[in-house]
């Protein structure tokens, strides 16, 4: 990625907040940053989901683990992202985005475990008893009854995690691995190039909005009964 050193002279008077010329001239840089941002978000959220679901089920099955897992997630949540990055980067290195990815997965993990666990514990006891009475074993009940009923909670967690991950990726720009954050910080450092800052910020918000709507749509498709009940 290459960054302009200052606003070009023929870009209208002064230093505009937004300029189509900037977008046109740097379309490739913008696309790269957007792709990196979306890719990093997707990897982080998917990894977090893969780890979070078994953890939530474990905490659900083994009741004494529920309290500690929730308390630990609360404590981890107070850790500043920059500090987490500072503790990870020297161990993992800054040439790749691994340290940012680990930090993002940890934060997303906390939201997902919490929401999945809330969803699972809200399955009514009668439903659980009925499933057992119908001859479902532990796994069958989990896959056929409990997880589908917990799906709205899991989807809410997934949306929250995705939206906040999109915003958090920008912190990675401290080590040059921040996707659109690199544009925002780059614009600030390159003589306060407003168009670059605003374009990066707007793309960031747009990405969060698009992913949120996408997940909301997927959630509606996966839980058709929820929409029918509301109607």
């Amino acid at each position, binding site marked *: 990625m290459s960054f302009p050193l200052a606003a070009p002279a023929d870009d209208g008077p002064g230093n505009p907040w937004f300029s189509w010329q900037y977008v046109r001239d740097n379309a490739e840089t913008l696309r790269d940053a957007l792709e990196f941002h979306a890719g990093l978000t997707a990897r982080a959220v998917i990894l977090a989901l893969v780890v979070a679901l078994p953890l939530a089920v474990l905490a659900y099955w083994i009741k004494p683990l529920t309290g500690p897992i929730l308390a630990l997630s609360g404590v981890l949540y107070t850790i500043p*992202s920059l500090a987490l990055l500072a503790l990870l980067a020297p161990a993992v290195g800054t040439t790749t985005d691994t340290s940012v990815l680990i930090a993002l997965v940890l934060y997303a993990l906390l939201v997902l475990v919490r929401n999945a666990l809330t969803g699972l514990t809200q399955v009514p006891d009668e439903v659980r008893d009925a499933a057992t009475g119908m001859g479902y074993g532990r796994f069958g009940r989990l896959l056929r009854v409990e997880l589908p009923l917990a799906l709205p909670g899991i989807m809410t967690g997934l949306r929250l995690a995705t939206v906040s991950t*999109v*915003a*958090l990726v920008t912190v990675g720009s401290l080590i040059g691995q921040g996707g659109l954050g690199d544009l925002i910080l780059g614009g*600030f450092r390159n003589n306060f190039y407003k168009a670059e800052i605003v374009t990066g910020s707007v793309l960031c918000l747009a990405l969060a909005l698009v992913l949120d709507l996408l997940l909301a749509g997927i959630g509606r498709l996966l839980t058709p009964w929820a929409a029918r009940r509301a109607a």
Partner: protein
Amino acid sequence: MTTLSEAIKWLNDPLNWTNPGGILERLSEHLQISFWAVLLGCLVGWPIGIWLGHRGRGGAAVITIANLTLALPTLALLTILPLTPIGFGQPPVVVALAVFAVPPLLSNAYTGLRSIDPEIKDAAKGMGLSGGQVLRRVELPLAVPYLAAGLRTAAVQVVATTTLATFVNGGGLGEIISAGFGLGISVGGNQIVAGGIFVVLLALAVEGLLALVQRLVTPRPLRAARRRRPTAAAPAG
């Protein structure tokens, strides 16, 4: 784990605390920025939340505001605000952080006033209290635990997020971390990790302290019922 022992060695060097730009100076900057940001957040979030809760409407607006700030990168506000008429220096940093302190303060104040038993308000009205008197003498005292919970969430979040002020040379403890990155990991690794450890400890200390405050201002019968709602948790910066 050699970096960790190096980091502890760095923390044990008194010069790293007292030098210009050392831990003590950065800590006082950090706490000042956080204090003003939380104060500003309270001045904006509480009156609006209390008013909306008292009127009993605007719940959708509260949720929308909370969700919007979740998607807004802190870095964007930190870089955009200094270029507005607010100007450079600490004020834009304080305003940027206050924006992220408002949602927890607002939504907790709103929930606090909404969750009061309507019968209590009816009884107060029946005793001849005016709308303002009901608010001051009945609703606000009953909402104090919620206000305290919001304050705790907001303050912890602000203290954590103030670390990001370093992106715009705004001061605070994040400067120690980014100065370490500036030196390169092989040279500044100890400083990076030391800064990280210190910021984590500060965040946990503030969280613990405010949890205690929240417990003290919550009347005993209300303590068990009140839990931090998962929606209040947002990643710090």
